[in-house]
């Protein structure tokens, strides 16, 4: 049993065992925390938040691309 993690763009699911906090999870996945939001049950988590073994977590990237005439990268 581990933390179920949903990654976006492209969408995929992983199961990670061991991480006890958001920061530990991001480190394990080598994700830069400034570039993502971490979400559990539609609620945002701060970096020090503790994770339970069966949590379902979404890691949502926030940096968009594009030449940005309107912001949003669009």
């Amino acid at each position, binding site marked *: 049993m581990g933390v179920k993690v949903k990654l976006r763009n492209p969408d995929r699911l992983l199961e990670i065992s061991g991480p006890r906090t958001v920061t530990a999870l991001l480190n394990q996945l080598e994700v830069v925390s400034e570039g993502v939001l971490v979400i559990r049950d539609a609620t945002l988590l701060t970096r020090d938040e503790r994770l339970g073994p069966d949590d379902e977590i979404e890691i949502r990237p*926030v*940096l968009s691309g594009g030449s940005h005439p*309107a912001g949003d990268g669009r």
Partner: protein
Amino acid sequence: MRCKVCRGHAVVDIRRHNAAFCPDHFVDHVTSQVAKALKEFKMATVEDRLLIAVSGGKDSLAVWDVLMNLGYDTTAFYLDLGIGGYSARSKEAAVAFAGSRGGKLITRSLREEHGFTVPELSTLTRRVPCSGCGLNKRYEFNRAALEEGFDVLVTGHNLDDEVATLFGNVLGWNTQMLGRQRPVLQERIVGAGDSRAFVKKIKPLVRIAERETAAYALIRGIDYIVEECPMVEGNTQHRYKEALTLLEEASPGTKHRMYFGFLKNASDRFAEDRGSAELIPCTDCGAPTVASGAHGVEKLMCSFCKTKALAHARRAERTNDSVHGAEQR
């Protein structure tokens, strides 16, 4: 972590401010940062009619939401770029948000206005999609604002957008763009007359990092489109953002220092590179274009009309070729 204001459970931490916030106080924080930018850079007053360029993404919907809450007179504008299912879904997000907040939304479609979509334009002109896309959007946003009598055009550019653009302009020492990179671009007049050529443009989210606009959208229940435009691949702007985010991670506040340091200490040094060439009306559409360096009638067309003419000419060539080919068979 605890909220800096009420000591309740925090959901967002902002390392460069050394602060964390509960949902309500985070919304207050973003709202006050936007209000501060509006005031500091004299962006708009509550008497102004604001047109907000929305894409269905988090930043443009967030800036619209904040401005509505601050009591500004807002209308949003959505331009359908014709990028397959992505455009369809982003339009849905914009329409749904407008509906849920009772906001006014104007929609136009590139194909209906000019006869091509962004992917078609890219194929016809043999240029990367983002270049034609950017040209189209700048042109259409300005045209819509002028035609519909708006005082100010609002875009959802955030701190990450601005610092990535600045970084790119510094890497290439593009002094003209450095001279123009401001949170406010004043309106410009065409020729000697008094008709407006370029509407005033403002970027109220310059004090808000992209991670914060995403958090704001989520907390406010804004159902924005998370999916990226399929044409974005290999985009340099995105690489700059990633590089700067690595620096930010190691040293919080880096982005803010670079951008606001530029505005305070360096921007004016590029003032004379801004280019204040006289504007003349495009011979085709009447939109403003730069008068200097024009030779021949053809050159007096604005870059949008030139690109449009090229696309239509190439399409006609193709149709002729295929008609010809069919006749020969």
